């Protein structure tokens, strides 16, 4: 099992959600986050005062998938989140040790 954490542009959330749904990957955790990568912050000047946005608002989605579906999931997210511009985000994949469904106590792949 793998865990995907993807940082994407906020307005791409619905697209990514739908794209994942279409291939049958359901369930995700979404959070509003801020950060920066190669797209550094930017500043705007208003009446001489600088308004610096050092951390750009992004959305983070987290999903867990079976190992054999990881490539598909990553490419679906990538396709859906792409604008070809800077700041499109990043996808992190990591090994998932254990999953437990709270209600039933099912574990691992049954709990996904």
């Amino acid at each position, binding site marked *: 099992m793998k865990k995907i954490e993807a940082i994407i*542009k906020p*307005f791409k959330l619905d697209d990514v959600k739908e794209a994942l749904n279409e291939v049958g990957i359901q369930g995700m955790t979404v959070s*509003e986050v*801020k950060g920066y990568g190669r797209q550094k912050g930017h500043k705007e000047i*208003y009446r001489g005062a600088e308004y610096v946005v050092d951390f750009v608002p992004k959305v983070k989605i987290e999903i867990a998938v079976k190992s054999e579906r990881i490539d598909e999931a990553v490419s679906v997210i990538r396709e859906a989140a792409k604008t070809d511009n800077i*700041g499109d985000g990043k996808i992190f994949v990591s090994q998932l040790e254990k999953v437990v469904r709270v209600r039933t106590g099912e574990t691992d792949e049954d709990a996904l």
Partner: protein
Amino acid sequence: MKTETLVKELKEKKEELSEIFLAKGESCFQKKLSDLYDDYFMKSFEYISDISNSLNTPFAVVALGGYGRQEQAPHSDIDILFLFENKPEEEADKIIKEILYPLWDYKFTIGHSTRTINECLKEAKSDIFNLTAMLDSRFICGFSPLYIRFAEKFRNYLSLNSRKLTEDIFAAAETRHREYGNSEYLLEPDIKSGMGGLRDYHTMRWIAKVHFDLQELKDFLYHGYLSETEYPEFLESLSFISRVRNNLHFLTNRKCDKLHFDHQLRIANKLGFSDKEGKTSVENFLGELHTRLNYLKEFFLMIKNESGRPRKLGIKRVYQKTTSVKDLEIKNSLIGFKSPEKILNDPSLLVKIFKESGLKKVPINSESKRLVWDFGYLAAQDKFRKNQDNISAFEKIMSIPYMDNHPLDSMLNTGFLGVYIPEFTDIANRIQYNDYHIYPVARHSIRAVQAVQELISEKGSLKNSDLYASVYSEIKPKRVLLWAVLLHDIGKGTSDNDHSISGAEMVKKILPDFNMKKEHIDNIAFLVENHLYLVKTATRRDIFDEETINACAVKIKSAMRLKMLYLLTLADSKATGPKAWSEWNESLITSLFLKTLKVLEKGNLSGPNAIRHLEKKTGGISALLKEYTDNPEAILSNMPATYVFELPESDILIHAKLYTRLKNSGKPFVFEVEKNKDSGLRRVFFCADDRPGFFSKAAGIFTVNNMDILDARAFSWKNSTALSIFTVSAPLDTVYEERIWNKTEKDLEKVLNNEFDLASAVMNKKSSYGIEDLFNTKDIVKTDNDSSSFYSIVEVHTVDYPGLLYDLTNILYKCGTDIKSAKIATKTTQVVDVFYLSSVEGEKISSEKASTIEKEILRELSEIKEAV
């Protein structure tokens, strides 16, 4: 009976009582539960006294807190005090445990203390919570003279310290409100500790206890704290909220006073609310609950205003506020009408009293609030509404910063607002059950008006309050913004699906009554209709895409309207609740605002008629394109607004045709030459795949083929297509001109395939022509990184020479920038070239990088001049 048997009996009876409550909604549940506990303590005390002869020190069993008030919620603690004359002996401790142990065993939660009378007084003095618990004390059983002695001493203490205790009690209430928030505005209200919650009622009781030793609730009425009409409402609110609390305890099976989302539906159904009048059961339930909480809050504030202030001025001279408004007076720090008749003579007093109350920061006394309610009908008359003084007073009220007893709140609560703006009554108790709005729309609207002042106040803890203040200071006239904020949700009173649209329609009908100019009404209607536009755009569109910003500018059209919409948006989110307002959201909205403002103030699209012109032009181009393509919109949608704005229709049409040719040919570029026989000039249109350096190479090719570049423009479409127009001198040989154009095309193809050394070829031309600098022109390079949110603008002033444009663009290319658009103009031997640059990745370049580029250009230019 043994205490354990008694507890078993208590448990059974409590379960029985609970069942009755859950099945039929027993109204005296709390009193009956507290009776059951009393019963247990009396019987167990009796039992203990019977079996124990060793009890030398008598004691009294006293109920405290909620148990003392006989308002025992299902899972609340049982607060009990064992009161002794002197320090109890060890034996007594055992006896007490005999009473308490079985209760613990059966999982009752007990808060107990064993104290002497003096200890009680000491505790009361040191801790406000002990004091208030004792204010609710009630004798249950045991040695009653002891309790009487305690009560007398305590009473004595209260009378001597009533002023200080009043202050302490209200201070504790304020701390509590800060901690739990105003439950009215919280999505998940705490019905005990939040504002308007039961604790506020308890606080009222404590105050009354301190002031006149309240014995029963009716004393509120006898002592004039509440009027005949208010008292029944007060009781009903109390009983409703208590019922909700009982249910909440049963539902969660614990002491839980916060009404979480997942409980709301079940409690609504339990209390018999159903879906009706287009609202769900939860919406109806919350509507009722919030009304009730608001009543309690109002009563609380009233008592706070009227009793929390020193009445005997002789003791300590306090600064007395006064009013100069005729027929109003300030007494005991409360404002009121001098007499009811004055209102009939001068109805404008109805609005003046609110204004003066807000400006002087004195609450309105309760008698006058009642008078406003009674005489409010006068405000429904046309001559009242259209009176400019009344309108100005009302607008002044809207600009008063948030405070307790804000005049807008008083206006709503006294029903005045609903009479003055009748459309307001439709949203007064309208609740929407979703994650965002949960309290009545009217209250939200008022909060939003107050939020405007909160945003701009320096005291505000908001990160960008200086930005908001700066924007607000530029808004003219402010009344337009304030009315728009007040009315932004007015459409929610209708059953229409889109409240923004219906709201805009209503605004057009409401505002002419308030002497508003047509121009302003149109702006307010626009703001109301689009009050969600910025939020939607910021969260659902790519705000780092120039076209999003341009579209936003096109929609909003003027910088002033944008500023108003920005503050409206923020005030709306701020007043909606913690879920709508977050720094994350705010930073998206502010970015969108600043970028769009730049376009409207500094960009090509600024200027009063620019946007209208652009719209008209887009329509025209679309019509022209129809003759060449079935789907003009597909091509049009690729064109940036600035491109459409700047080029004439005929040029855009040529580009559009070239674009079709490019796609069909599969070549990297196509071009077309427009000949002007008279002037000896040629205009060359390019359409190419956008790759860095193309513009530079095309410029070089003209130089190599002996054509002077007099003027050049470069643009990019959104689909990575580069468009440019060069105005060049006609080829030397105009007879065989076609041949030269063919050669030019071949040359450019070779350059792109790296089969042609363009740099050397241009250098050769430069050497043979030389640079003629008659006036010894000084090179000037200016970079501007502020005017555009997307590009750095580099302006170069220098002397013209063949190959200059190639050199300049080549330097920019080598600096790792991409030319998004360019404007090249030559005046005799002087050139002014303006480049709009981004990084190769499409990001705006940093100021540091921009100044490096500036230096680089100057250095290279002087090197070139020396070399030639």
